[in-house]
């Protein structure tokens, strides 16, 4: 496999030895490079996903989607971003101004933070902590706070109802999300994202035990609810709450929520692809060495993107197919079905690891 850490080591030695910069300056330049890379990837993926969502939605509803701006409307998203950037930033008179302006920061921190955990290729992962998965869930729950503060700070009755719904739904589904990740940690024996991918060298995780594919499906459902997307989008149910927690946000304030929603979709798909489908690890079948060698020839980043966008496509398909659930149905689904199911799956996985 092609190892991206060769490139990063080369840049490091270039800064330290060839250009002879000190410790401080080389680390500073590396950090700035990392930041630029994250922002570029973040913006590009948001643009691709928003365009993809519009086209997929149009496809499912037998429409054409955006067609006017550029060929097949490919510049529609750029036009939208430009429009949002030149709108006025405006808060309601009676809003809690501090919470109102802090909330987008929290949402973006959660989404950029979780985005940095994705392993793009061997050696190409920004945050590769040894407590990776644990920290990932911790950072993703900051996003709940952002949604709640946005709705509460707006001083709009619809937004407060939406904030309550969003918070109760996201904290509930976080639990089965965590249990899915724990069942993966039980199988791989490490919380490090890189280690989880390496542990799938022989076979992807969903092929390793007879029950892990169930955990994968639960992860998709819980992840969809965690990203606040339909059929679990009752926090921003436009037919009953206008737009939910971001009703009172104008211009880029709304833009951040829009951005974070799509990036959360990508992060959920990326984590599902990494933890259960092997991330950048090619498809390996035990015993077929020739086949494995051919699969190794395809670069890891292509494997990662193909898997992630396949899951993104499935989640978009679900969003545009199913009607919205009610709040009691959502909570019933989580507490009476998914969570007991995940406890059973976790026990079975442990039995498999301990005894087989």
């Amino acid at each position, binding site marked *: 496999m092609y190892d991206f850490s060769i490139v990063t080591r080369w840049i490091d030695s270039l800064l330290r030895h060839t250009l002879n910069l000190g410790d401080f300056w080389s680390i500073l330049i590396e950090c700035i490079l990392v930041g630029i890379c994250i922002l570029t990837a973040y913006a590009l993926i948001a643009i691709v996903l928003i365009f993809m969502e519009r086209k997929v939605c149009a496809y499912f509803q037998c429409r054409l989607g955006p067609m006017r701006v550029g060929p097949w409307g490919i510049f529609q998203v750029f036009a939208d971003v430009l429009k949002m950037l030149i709108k006025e930033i405006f808060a309601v*008179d009676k809003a809690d101004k501090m919470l109102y302006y802090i909330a987008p920061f929290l949402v973006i921190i959660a989404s950029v933070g979780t985005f940095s955990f994705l392993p793009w290729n061997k050696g190409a992962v920004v945050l590769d902590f040894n407590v990776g998965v644990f920290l990932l869930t911790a950072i993703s729950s900051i996003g709940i706070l952002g949604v709640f503060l946005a709705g509460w700070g707006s*001083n709009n009755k619809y937004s407060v109802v939406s904030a309550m719904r969003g918070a109760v739904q996201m904290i509930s589904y976080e639990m089965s999300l965590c249990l899915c990740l724990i069942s993966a940690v039980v199988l791989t024996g490490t919380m490090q994202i890189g280690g989880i991918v390496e542990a799938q060298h022989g076979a992807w995780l969903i092929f390793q035990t007879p029950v892990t594919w169930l955990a994968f499906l639960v992860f998709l459902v819980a992840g969809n609810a965690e990203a606040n997307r339909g059929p679990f989008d009752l926090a921003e149910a436009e037919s009953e709450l*206008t737009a939910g927690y971001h009703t009172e946000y104008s211009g880029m304030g709304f833009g*951040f929520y829009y951005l974070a929603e799509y990036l959360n979709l990508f992060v959920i798909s990326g984590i599902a692809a990494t933890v259960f489908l092997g991330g950048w690890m090619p498809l390996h079948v035990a015993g077929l060495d020739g086949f494995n060698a051919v699969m190794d020839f395809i670069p890891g980043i292509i494997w990662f993107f193909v898997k992630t966008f396949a899951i993104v496509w499935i989640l978009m398909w679900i969003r545009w197919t199913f009607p919205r659930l009610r709040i009691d149905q959502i909570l019933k689904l989580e507490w009476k079905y998914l969570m007991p199911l995940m406890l059973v799956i976790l026990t079975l996985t*442990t039995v498999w690891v301990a005894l087989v």
Partner: protein
Amino acid sequence: MYFTLFITVLITAVVLVVAAYVIAKLIGPRSYNPVKGEPFECGIPTHGSSWLPMHVGYYLFAILFLMFDIETVFLYPWAVVVKQFGSLALISIGFFLVVLVLGLAYAWRKGALEWK
């Protein structure tokens, strides 16, 4: 090095938000009138504050979440060592899970999982 990268990621996120806000402040239009400062609710004037007491069900699920989320936090360190300890890990977590499942069953029986 990990800590530096983590701080870098956080600063990147903050820079993204601040930059977009600054651009919008610089090139966006500015106007004010009292109607614009009203919250958007159906078009009729708003009555009172929105910070009202909410349905108690939300708080009930928040308390349940606290309980079971602490459970998942305790499960993480255990999950890492299952492979090394084998069946011993299964027995030791068995007690923990049984107590929790009993707790969930109790909450279910008492109707705490119903939305009323």
